């Protein structure tokens, strides 16, 4: 009998859940909210996977403050060009990669160019190019080697910016003079020496920094306009085949020497940063806005849900306790709640975060600790009115203890409020976190929508709508989804509570 009744009980539970879902289904607002939430959950879970860029750390993944790639289909934005990365394996991880480069020398026999896994100290990736010069097999005059890569620029408009890089290490140079340079050749075969260096003694790996940046004054100074020049604009003046090469010229070679000169080359690269990037463009520092948005969704949901959960739990416990014990406990806890309610929330939040430190956990903690009062009052008044209800008296008359009454009778009857309050506390927490980040007190290591809006204001980027719209709209939509669910839950659950 008990097994069958247990099943019956379970069936009743299923029926109740189905009944609730049936009611919920009728509620258009609720369904809309749930749909939106579902979308955001998916976005937070899978959105970050669609982009490898780190929202905070990865700078210059595209041109700075460039609109999304699809903008080029809009009128007036046809000039937009994407990023171009002609070189696949910057780290020279594979010996086959060498074949992607054209190698020319004037003394075929003296140079050997191999893939090396040695000498790797500062360059990135698992390997490098090793250029060996056998001094005995050469004439003392200039010997040079050119490693070049040809790529085509198919856009009539120039990229926003280009950068080239190089890491190298020279060994056995003593007495030999070595000049290395990075050169970009445009479609009209005009050569631009972007960077060069003379090496007269053994050099350790150069630092892994961009040797050439079209934004840098050093590069600009190559051109007649000097600081006012835009190298990207000057060089990429039309469609056609462009060439990027690295050249090492050896001079005054001591042919007597038995020492082989080694030149390790790594991270040889040119990046063309277009005037558009990805799904949502880039921010002030060329970071991926889409990636920020996706990670922001994670932050917002995490902060919103966890905060709502904590503050509702506190509110529930305080409310139950105050309502049930009454007397002094009630008086004290409610006066305390009153007091917290008159203290302006946002300034208090700001100062507490400023004191405690800007970490996401602190933010969650502080918002929860300042957000329970309203709900505890609601719970308390509900408990007080429940206490007056006859079925509580009936339970007491039956001999039920306070704990029994609280768990069996009070709690199930305030759960409706709990769900509603959870739903309405989430957007409040999301907005609070966003406000905090917006005011510059967010967690700097984590991207959030509020942080994005903060950056927009900080860098006066209000005109960049592609950057302004997404975070605000997401905050609004996520908040709306919870507000709508809260409204409909209230409509469904709480009339039941009141109805007799």
């Amino acid at each position: 009998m008990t097994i069958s009744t247990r099943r019956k009980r379970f069936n009743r539970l299923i029926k109740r859940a189905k009944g609730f879902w049936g009611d919920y289904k009728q509620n258009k607002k609720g369904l809309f909210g749930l749909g939106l939430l579902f979308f955001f959950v998916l976005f937070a879970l899978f959105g970050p996977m669609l982009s490898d860029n780190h929202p905070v750390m990865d700078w210059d993944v595209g041109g700075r403050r460039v609109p999304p790639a699809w903008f080029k289909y809009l009128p007036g934005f046809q000039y937009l060009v994407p990023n171009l990365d002609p070189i696949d394996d910057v780290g020279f991880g594979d010996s086959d990669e060498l074949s992607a480069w054209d190698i020319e020398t004037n003394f075929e026999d003296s140079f050997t160019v191999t893939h090396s896994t040695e000498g790797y100290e500062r360059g990135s990736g698992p390997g490098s190019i090793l250029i060996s010069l056998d001094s005995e097999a050469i004439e003392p005059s200039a010997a040079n080697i050119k490693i070049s890569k040809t790529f085509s620029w198919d856009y009539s408009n120039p990229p926003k910016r280009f950068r080239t890089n190089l890491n190298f290490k020279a060994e056995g140079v003593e007495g030999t003079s070595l000049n290395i340079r990075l050169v970009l050749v445009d479609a009209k075969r005009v050569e631009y020496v972007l960077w060069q260096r003379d090496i007269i003694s053994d050099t350790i790996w150069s630092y892994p920094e961009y040797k050439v940046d079209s934004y840098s004054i050093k590069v600009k100074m190559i051109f007649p306009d000097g600081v006012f020049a835009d190298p990207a604009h000057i060089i990429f003046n039309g469609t056609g085949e462009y060439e990027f090469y690295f050249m090492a010229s050896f001079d005054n070679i001591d042919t007597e020497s038995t020492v082989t000169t080694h030149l390790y080359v790594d991270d040889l690269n040119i990046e063309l940063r277009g005037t558009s990037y990805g799904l949502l463009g880039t921010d002030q520092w060329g970071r991926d806005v889409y990636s920020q948005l996706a990670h922001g969704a994670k932050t917002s949901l995490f902060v919103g849900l966890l905060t709502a959960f904590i503050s509702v739990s506190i509110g529930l416990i305080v409310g139950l306790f105050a309502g049930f014990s009454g007397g002094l406990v009630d008086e004290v806890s409610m006066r305390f709640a009153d007091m917290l309610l008159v203290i302006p929330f946002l300034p208090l939040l700001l100062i507490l975060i400023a004191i405690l430190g800007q970490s996401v956990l602190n933010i969650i903690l502080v918002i929860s600790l300042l957000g329970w009062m309203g709900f505890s009052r609601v719970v308390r008044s509900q408990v007080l009115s429940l206490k007056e209800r006859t079925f509580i008296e009936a339970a007491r008359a039956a001999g039920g203890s306070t704990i029994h009454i609280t768990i069996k009778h009070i709690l199930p009857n305030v759960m409706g409020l709990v769900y509603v309050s959870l739903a309405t506390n989430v957007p409040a927490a999301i907005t609070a976190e966003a406000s905090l980040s917006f005011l510059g007190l967010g967690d700097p290591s984590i991207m959030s929508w509020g942080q994005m809006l903060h950056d927009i204001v900080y860098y006066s980027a209000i005109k960049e709508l592609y950057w302004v719209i997404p975070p605000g709209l997401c905050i609004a939509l996520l908040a709306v989804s919870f507000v709508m669910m809260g409204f409909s839950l209230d409509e469904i659950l709480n009339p039941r509570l009141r109805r007799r």
Partner: protein
Amino acid sequence: MSLKRYILKRTLYSIVLLFFALTLNFIIFRMAPGNPIQIVASGVRLKPEMVERLIELWGLNEPLHVQYIRYLKSTLTWDFGYSYNSLEPVGREIMERLPNTLLLMGVSLFFAIVFGTVFGVYAAYKRGSLFDLTTVTVSLFSYALPTFWMGLLMIYVGGYLFGMFPLAGTMSRPPPLDPIMRIFDLAWHLFLPGLTLFLFQYGGWLLMMRSTLLEALHEDYITTARAKGVAERGVLFKHAFRNAMLPLVTNIALQIPGLLNGAILTETVFSWRGLGLYTWSAIQFTDYPVLQAVFYIFALVTIVCNLIVDIVYGYIDPRIQY
């Protein structure tokens, strides 16, 4: 109990609340890290005797309870000390900015109540209609939109796109000399932040108005009114509205803290020279005397508004339980 006693009771309670707020305010800033001396002297190397002198000046060497009592005394006499940042008296700086904040809050609250109420009543009157549906949806969104984002869009649309309104600030620089032009200039600057803060409140106000009214419409006395021959308009605007008014009045008080939050954000976005912006910049400089004073002012505003609403409530609800 008489109304007089009720008012006395509420006033006493407000004083107690204010006292609590003051105490909390004291405790928080005692907890705060960073010695004021370090903050003031950041970048400058002070001689030990100068540090000593400053400590004495700020009374930081006295026992806590003495500091507390002095804090109470000075706060209640509107003496908030000097800003760490500008080294100006905080009281004076606050008095310069408070009117701006009150203006912003007052104007937006006023319009939010007027429009929220009118549209809310009308939506309840036309419940189920297209008008109702659109108003409710729009309100839901304006209720959920982040204030600062709304502010940004306002600046974009009103400031950049149409170029009709200033992007920031409270007054043109230099301000016009003619007093009437000054008022116009202020209003011109006020428009966008005011609209933002208005939208921030309007939605919630409308939704609440509508739902309390709909709730009131289910009462028995509404049937009585209809039976008496009162036309639907009269049922709604006279019988239901008078009853729905009561929870709304209470709600004004409850909205004040939220409104302050909104004001801080709006002022920051629009560089509106009010207490919100003042708070924000004080946080940037960890300017404790300013923060402490601003806290006190905000709590005071909230408590006074609550008190006023309580008293108004006492007058308008014949059933109030004193």
